[in-house]
């Protein structure tokens, strides 16, 4: 019972915190350089892991699907299946999980350490609102970066699938691309995937900045907040993926 009350209290605190962040976002349009700096640290520095993981996921998908599709003589649909798997599902979900591990944990640790070293209190005493200057730019940067990273993940994954399917396993190049062109629907497939990544970006960024701001300001407190960010974000992404998929594709 006590655990449930604690969980609800934290959820309440997190929601109030989110309202304060959202209220601070209009101010950021006057200081957009703060957001751009964070997009670099949250988004650009996550790019490498997204590129490498996207490539391998696309290559493995092509191998697995080719093995099954040849049984039915349907290997020409390889490009389509790789594309749909990535754009609808794996792109947004895997990119969000990697983003939570790489950027979300870094955000929590950074904000937590700023709290532990009194930098946030120092800003308050300088009459500067830390939520407006520190938290909101990081939240917005995360929210903007993840959809772009997910799109890059899917694009690189399709290239990985092409390399394995066409160059290695001999699927026809024209069939690979034309199936994608003919069967992938912009609204049903691509846009739904983009909506998913926007929702995931919102959730992961919210959890990451809240855990950092709300952590116990000690080494142990920052460490457990960082762990919570990765665990809670991953579970939230997977749970929300099910809900969104059920709404979008049924």
């Amino acid at each position, binding site marked *: 019972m006590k655990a449930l009350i604690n969980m609800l209290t934290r959820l309440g605190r997190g929601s109030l915190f989110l309202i304060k962040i959202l209220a601070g976002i209009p101010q950021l349009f006057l200081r957009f350089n703060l957001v751009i700096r964070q997009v670099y640290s949250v988004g650009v520095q996550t790019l490498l892991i997204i590129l490498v993981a996207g490539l391998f996921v696309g290559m493995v998908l092509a191998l697995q699907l080719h093995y099954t599709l040849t049984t039915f003589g349907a290997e020409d649909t390889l490009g389509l299946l790789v594309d749909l798997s990535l754009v609808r599902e794996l792109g947004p979900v895997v990119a969000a999980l990697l983003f939570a591990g790489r950027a979300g944990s870094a955000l929590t640790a950074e904000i937590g350490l*700023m709290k532990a*070293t*009194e*930098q946030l*209190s*120092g*800003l*308050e*005493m*300088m*009459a*500067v*609102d830390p939520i407006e200057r520190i938290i909101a730019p990081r939240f917005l940067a995360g929210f903007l970066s993840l959809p772009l990273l997910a799109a890059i993940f899917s694009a690189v994954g399709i290239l990985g699938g092409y390399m394995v399917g066409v160059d290695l396993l001999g699927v026809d190049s024209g069939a690979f691309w034309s199936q994608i062109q003919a069967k992938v629907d912009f609204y049903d497939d691509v846009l739904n995937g983009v909506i998913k990544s926007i929702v995931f970006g919102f959730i992961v960024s919210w959890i990451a900045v809240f855990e950092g701001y709300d952590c116990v300001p000690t080494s142990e407190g920052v460490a457990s907040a960082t762990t919570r960010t990765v665990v809670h974000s991953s579970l939230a992404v997977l749970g929300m993926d099910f809900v969104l998929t059920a709404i979008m594709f049924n």
Partner: protein
Amino acid sequence: MPDTLIQIRDLHFTRAHKKIFAGVNMDIKAGRITAVMGPSGTGKTTLLKLIGGQLKPDQGEIQVDGQNVHQLKRADLYKLRKKMGMLFQSGALLTDLNVFDNIAYPLREHTNLSESMIRSMVLIKLQAVGLSTAHKLMPAELSGGMARRVALARALALDPMMIMYDEPFTGQDPISLGVLVKLIQDTNHALKLTSILVSHDVEETLSIADEVIILSEGKVIAEGSRDEILQSQSEWVRQFVDGKADGPVPFHYPGDSIEKQLMQAPK
């Protein structure tokens, strides 16, 4: 400016079920250095956070410059904070900015001064703490004493009416300690500031304080001028000022006697 800059009345504050303040009253006189002293854990830093409006009391009120801190709207509280400087124990410098940008930060946030004017002001503040040549260094490259001097320069950036020092002498080598003591005294007199100095370093603090307030167990146990405190015969004051291990503040943490504990079977 009134004679009394800060007035605290019937202050009660509890944290994690522990009573930190139970009816504290104090007056901080304008233009003076007031030392707030007491053993560790008596809530000295908490007192500064209450004065700065970062924490809310359970009961009582704190007036700074005639304004009740905890009844101000956010915009008014921020306006008041611009007139309050605070030097944190850790320095609290922004670690992603260099020394120059740390000091320029409040100026860029709260004024419309040109960059050349900001540059001049920052260098003047740094010169006052003896670090004008260190303006390109990052906080990680500074020693503890240098970081506190930079933090002092930042606290002075907006020309406040008062400065709160949170344990400025903790963990300093003798040279840094001497520099900080001199800086606090010189800054206060040159700029006619009101300073609140929270510390448990008796010798250094008493060497520069005009007024002294000693806190223990949530109450003010002694207050007066430096000389009055030094001559006080109160057991509390003597234990604290002379650094005696035992006295009204017990050496042993309250609980069962050692005999009783030894007789108990381990759980």
